[in-house]
């Protein structure tokens, strides 16, 4: 009789580790989100519809998604640039700059918001330079985008950096022996290799920006229909003890975010699947 030998795994048993994963995700994510939807469903359908399609709410959805998207795109471009500088060049103070990148993670967002407002306000250090040109930064959507860019910066840098570090010079060399110039090497060889990582960083920065509250409320000025973000409206509803209304707005936000992130992840999966099969 041949006895089947079970392949050795590092963690004991699929059952145990999967069970743990599900309980963990339930306690931390699934149950709170379910309660959110349950709370929203205490309203009648017409009430929900009325709450979530209110002009002021719709304006805040548009603003939140638009400014989060712009901030994530800016981070994708400049985060990649920072990662490039940190990997490809040696210069004094490199370690310090590397550490600075993580600062937005560590700083309380309210502190970041107040600091940004102070310098970008019309009489602030940077704000006063733009004021004569008729460009206002604080208390406009531009200010919101700056705050969201600030808090999303580490994501792209930290996802692109390791990929760039592992990128073998031989690919650039191969391309140059085949007659490619530096622009072609960057766009045809390096960028496609980095793209899945940039997309991951973009998705993380985008997701982070959608839910950001602390840093934005100071710099946005919170003008209804103009500079009100969704998280602010939710907090406003909570302060008025309209818990169900807050939950309804939050649910819509959640569904949109989920669809977007799912689409980005699917896209990213498709790209990396293409050339990573074993």
């Amino acid at each position, binding site marked *: 009789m041949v006895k089947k030998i079970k392949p050795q795994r590092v963690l004991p048993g699929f059952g145990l580790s999967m069970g743990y994963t599900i309980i963990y995700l339930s306690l931390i994510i699934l149950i709170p989100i379910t309660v959110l939807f349950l709370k929203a469903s205490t309203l009648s359908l017409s009430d929900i519809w009325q709450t979530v399609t209110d002009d002021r709410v719709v304006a805040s959805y548009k603003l939140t998604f638009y400014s989060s998207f712009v901030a994530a795109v800016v981070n994708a471009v400049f985060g990649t640039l920072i990662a490039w500088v940190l990997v490809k060049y040696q210069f004094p103070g490199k370690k310090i700059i590397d550490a600075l990148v993580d600062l937005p993670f560590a700083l309380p967002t309210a502190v970041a918001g107040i600091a940004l407002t102070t310098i970008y306000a019309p009489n602030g250090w940077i704000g006063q330079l733009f004021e004569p040109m008729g460009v206002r930064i604080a208390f406009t959507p531009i200010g919101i985008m700056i705050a969201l860019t600030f808090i999303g910066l580490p994501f792209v840098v930290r996802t692109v950096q390791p990929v760039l570090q592992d990128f*073998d010079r*031989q*690919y650039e*060399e*191969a*391309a*140059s*022996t*085949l*007659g*490619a*110039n530096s622009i*072609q090497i960057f766009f*045809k*060889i390096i960028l*496609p*290799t980095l793209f899945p990582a940039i997309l991951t960083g973009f998705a993380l920065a985008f997701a982070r920006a959608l839910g950001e509250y602390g840093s934005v409320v100071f710099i946005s000025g919170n003008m209804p229909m103009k500079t009100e973000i969704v998280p602010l409206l939710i907090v406003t509803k909570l302060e008025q003890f309209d818990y169900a209304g807050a939950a309804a707005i939050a649910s819509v936000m959640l569904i949109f975010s989920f669809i977007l992130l799912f689409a980005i992840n699917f896209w990213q999966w498709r790209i990396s699947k*293409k*050339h*990573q*099969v*074993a």
Partner: protein
Amino acid sequence: MGITIEKVSKAFGDFAAIKDVQLEIPSGDFIALLGPSGSGKTTLLRLIAGLESLDSGKILFNDIDYSNKTVKERKVGFVFQHYALFKHMTIFENIAFGLKVRPFKLRPSNQEIKERVYSLLKFVQLEHMADRYPSQLSGGQKQRIALARALAVEPEVLLLDEPFGALDAKVRQELRHWLREIHEKLNITTIFVTHDQEEALEMADTIVVMNQGQIEQIGSPDEVYHHPVNAFVYRFLGRVNEFIDSENEVTYIRPHEVVLRKSAQGNSVPAKVLHVHSVGSLVRIQLNRLDTNALFEAEVNTEKYQEIGPLKKGDLLYATFSNLVAFGNEQKEALTAIL
């Protein structure tokens, strides 16, 4: 295309990788740069390709100074040890790359590119692989595609950096023959780097033996194997026994040149068997000279082994060393440096 390397030197920091190298490569030659790691062979290849810049000296292609030309301008085909296929492109796109990056005026039409890629795929016998990604290919297939990609731009020089270094023994053997055939068909100047003396002897028309950034010998496989100019070349090109006599003079003999008999004859030396192992059609015997106590190895074919054997540890044999080679004492320093 003929290549002339004139007094070329290159250092990386304090390490002199190439020291004052002089080399003339005739057009259409198939040449091996052979040497141990750190001998500068890969650096020399990369200097020819333009992937490294010269510290001093000149590199001429067909008597025109190419020293300051960029990689792109040199129009060389380069094959890397680890293939360097672009992972995000299909095999087709990989081979087409060199044609597609050409400036608009020089770029062939899509139809021409397609025809060229397919004829190259046919040439490397991998037509059915066009739509695959590099990760779906075996090592040997990848290296064939890498060669097809290098040939797509119609280079006048083909440079290969340890092209079979990452492959297993059987595939390596196949690809050696195949590369040799390809060179015969295309007849472009081909330079390859290897640390495997067998590979160099088997494939190249000319072997350049390198050591510590300098050329030790240039010659046909026959010349470098049978008429090595110094101990380094002799040692590097095959298995070797080394004896030091009472005057401290070093002499060498290859294991297959040692003659073993069961009885004493002429100036034979008694020796004790230490170990016997057969490698395919050969038997290698480790022995201990009873007169000087030196260890040495003998290599005999299975027929000869049946004459003197079967042997076991402790058996007594008589060895004749008739072809001892000496290079004089001045070589000893160089020798100890590599040991």
